[in-house]
């Protein structure tokens, strides 16, 4: 297991360098951002001075080398527009997006696995109902659902806040309330995906010979399902849950806009739009680290549940 994990971490580091280098070189192709930084009243001399200050008059390879050297020491620089430290901007926004993605993933995992298992075990009308609901879940756009939820539960019933986020440390109860509608609007598709994948995996395991044998030997139903069927079905479900988590991180921007959550998605979009390179790179690093960390954890879990996976 340690060798397995070390291999995964080494791959992650190489990937991180490659992704940041690609982002840096791609961002160097966008037009000069200094007119937007200084505003339309800046003179040519002021623009040239700003370009020099930001190092934009130096070769891109040198600039990437500098950035990497600072980033390795934990210094991601400052925003070209606001002058605020990149890391501070990210740590302000990260809890919002992580709260959204983690809670939505938990909801998706619990509901999706429960529905998928129930459909595969019970079959009949429940199976059909889960499949129909899953199809609907795939089809419903999160943005549309979000707007409907706001109208119904915030504007008409006044049950939940229409916008805004309350930090967990400030008020856990209000934190949860502020997440209910955003989580519902992005979790529906994920619940559907996890339910469909779990249903197929459980159905496939239930049809295996060893399950029939265990059933024939009189193994209690609960033990059979939890110990043998679920454990052998879970790797497939966990993989889809991890993919959903990554998808939720990327797709959070739409929900962040609807519910005025100033998260990482909003920061990524605004900084990319105005070519705020240090912030874009900071967001990319954090995004890649989260994705890689999730993959490593899932790989480790799958490896723990299925020893064959460790050798792949």
């Amino acid at each position: 297991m340690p060798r397995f994990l070390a291999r995964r971490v080494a791959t992650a580091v190489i990937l991180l360098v490659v992704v940041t280098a690609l982002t840096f070189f791609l961002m160097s192709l966008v037009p000069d951002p200094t007119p937007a930084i200084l505003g339309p009243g800046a003179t040519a001399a002021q623009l040239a001075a700003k370009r020099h200050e930001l190092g934009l008059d130096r070769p891109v390879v040198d600039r990437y080398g500098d950035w990497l050297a600072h980033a390795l020491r934990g210094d991601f620089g400052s925003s070209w527009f606001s002058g605020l430290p990149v890391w501070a901007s990210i740590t302000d926004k990260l809890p919002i997006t992580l709260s959204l993605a983690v809670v939505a993933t938990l909801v998706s995992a619990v509901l999706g696995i429960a529905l998928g298992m129930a459909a595969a075990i019970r079959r009949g009308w429940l199976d059909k109902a889960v499949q129909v609901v899953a199809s609907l879940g795939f089809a419903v756009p999160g943005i549309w659902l979000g707007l409907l939820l706001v109208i119904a539960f915030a504007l008409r019933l006044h049950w939940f806040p229409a916008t805004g986020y309350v930090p967990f440390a400030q008020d856990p109860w209000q934190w949860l309330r502020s997440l209910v509608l955003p989580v519902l609007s992005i979790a529906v598709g994920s619940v559907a995906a996890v339910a469909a994948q779990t249903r197929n995996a459980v159905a496939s395991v239930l049809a295996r010979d060893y399950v029939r044998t265990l059933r024939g030997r009189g193994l209690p139903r609960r033990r059979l399902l939890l110990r043998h069927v679920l454990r052998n079905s879970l790797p497939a479900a966990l993989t889809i849950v991890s993919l959903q988590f990554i998808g939720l991180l990327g797709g959070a921007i739409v929900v962040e806009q609807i519910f005025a959550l100033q998260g990482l998605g909003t920061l990524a979009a605004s900084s990319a739009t105005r070519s705020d390179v240090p912030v874009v790179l900071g967001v990319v690093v954090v995004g890649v680290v989260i994705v890689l960390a999730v993959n490593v954890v899932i790989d480790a879990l799958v490896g723990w549940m299925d020893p064959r996976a460790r050798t792949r």
Partner: protein
Amino acid sequence: MRRTRGRRLAGLVAIAVLGLSATECSAGGAQPAGTSVLRIPAPNDAGSWDPAAHGASDLPTLGFFQAVFAMLTTIEPDQSIGPGLATSWSYDAPKTTLTMNLRSGVSFTDGTAFDASVVKQNLDRDLAAKGQAAISLAAIGQVSVASQYQVVIKLNTPDPALLYTFGLIPGAMISPRSFTAAATAPVGCGPYVLDAGQTTRGSTYVFTRNPKYNLPQKFGFDTVQYKVITDTNAQVTALASHQVDTGGVTAPGLASVKSAGMSATGVSGLIVAMFIVDRAGTTNPALAKPQVRQALNYGLNATALLDSIGGKSGSRTTQMFAAGTPAYDASLNSRYPYDPAKARQLLAEAGYPHGFTLQLPSENTYLPALYPIVSQQLAQIGVRVKYTPVSADQITAQYLSGKFPAFMFTYTATQNWLDVQSLLARTAPFNPFHVDDPTVSQLAGQIAVAGADQQATLLKQLNTYIVDQGWFAPLYVNTSYLVWDPRKVSISLAKSQEFAYLYQYQPAR
């Protein structure tokens, strides 16, 4: 048994939902009883708290700064200049030396006393930082301390907007002891202090009264909360669900917030216009002729565009200055009625009886529906429009680069001299071909040194000249709406105001 367990589970879910929904409390934490709280949506984050990083045109961020900092002057609702940290001022005859007398007995929240040395340190630092504030304060040559409460500011050129700029972010005074951490820790002598415990940076900013505040301007609320809501639809839902007490909406969102009991008043917003910038004919010789530019004005059916694109929420205008300001002349709005026949006649007189080809940029973010209608209308007078698509993040850079002879764009008119510097001067950003018109230069030179009454007359002359010469083809000025909860807030706006200053919000009686 199974049914009982199902019921129990359903009961637990119901209790959880009811429990979550029962606690009706605003995001951002509870406020002490008996205090008045004003909750305002902010269209963008405060960003850096360093005034050196913000220019005079950064109006969306102004509210944050008005909460914690006091400015050298105060902009009154009618745009006249009132005292702030400076109590009085005077210019010399050539208007290149400004002497400002400062308020005594003022101190920053860190205990530092405010005096002339603080003003010098702030202005010198703003200029040295070479950020947006330095550009807004570019006329300043030297700042010197005449006495403890008097500064003398030498200008490189006269700047009739300098006192106005001093009422905006570049005029905000921060404690010199906070210079090194100015971006993240605001230390001012304004009406409020930032409550770091209640603030979630980037999302919600909470300000509570500054016990040391002793300027005469009164701020009505004990606590001010700015909630960052960048999306316009989210602002409407926040207003309609009373998560905020005031805010701005456009016509489509008005019914929703009014049905929630909000009061509203219309305010002038963006001017939608064709900017005819290649007036020297560098890339399109036709545009050098005033008749051609006038023909474009006659050939665009502004009223139809206002109805179809502007949602009938706005008014026709032919000028680039805000209504209610000295330069504005309502009679000019009848100068260019829609008249394609007149447009064709003017083109023929200019030597273009068969029209000409006009290269314009287009974008799909701000005015996407405008472009096909404009090309159809101009085709009626023989002007063949060819569009070049520009991506959203490059609009300003591309439009102001001198690549296009004209472009459709929006403009927010503010103070007349700032508009002159922004639109008309040889070095103006909206004059990318640096066209130097002797009449405009002469009038601008006179305005720079004129007294207030004479200045108003000259500004009107300048505006009339620009409209007659067809430098722009303005179509309409959008109306947006300032809305507020009348049970909590009282606001009174002057005619030319596009937004309310923080001191204008008072608790409802």
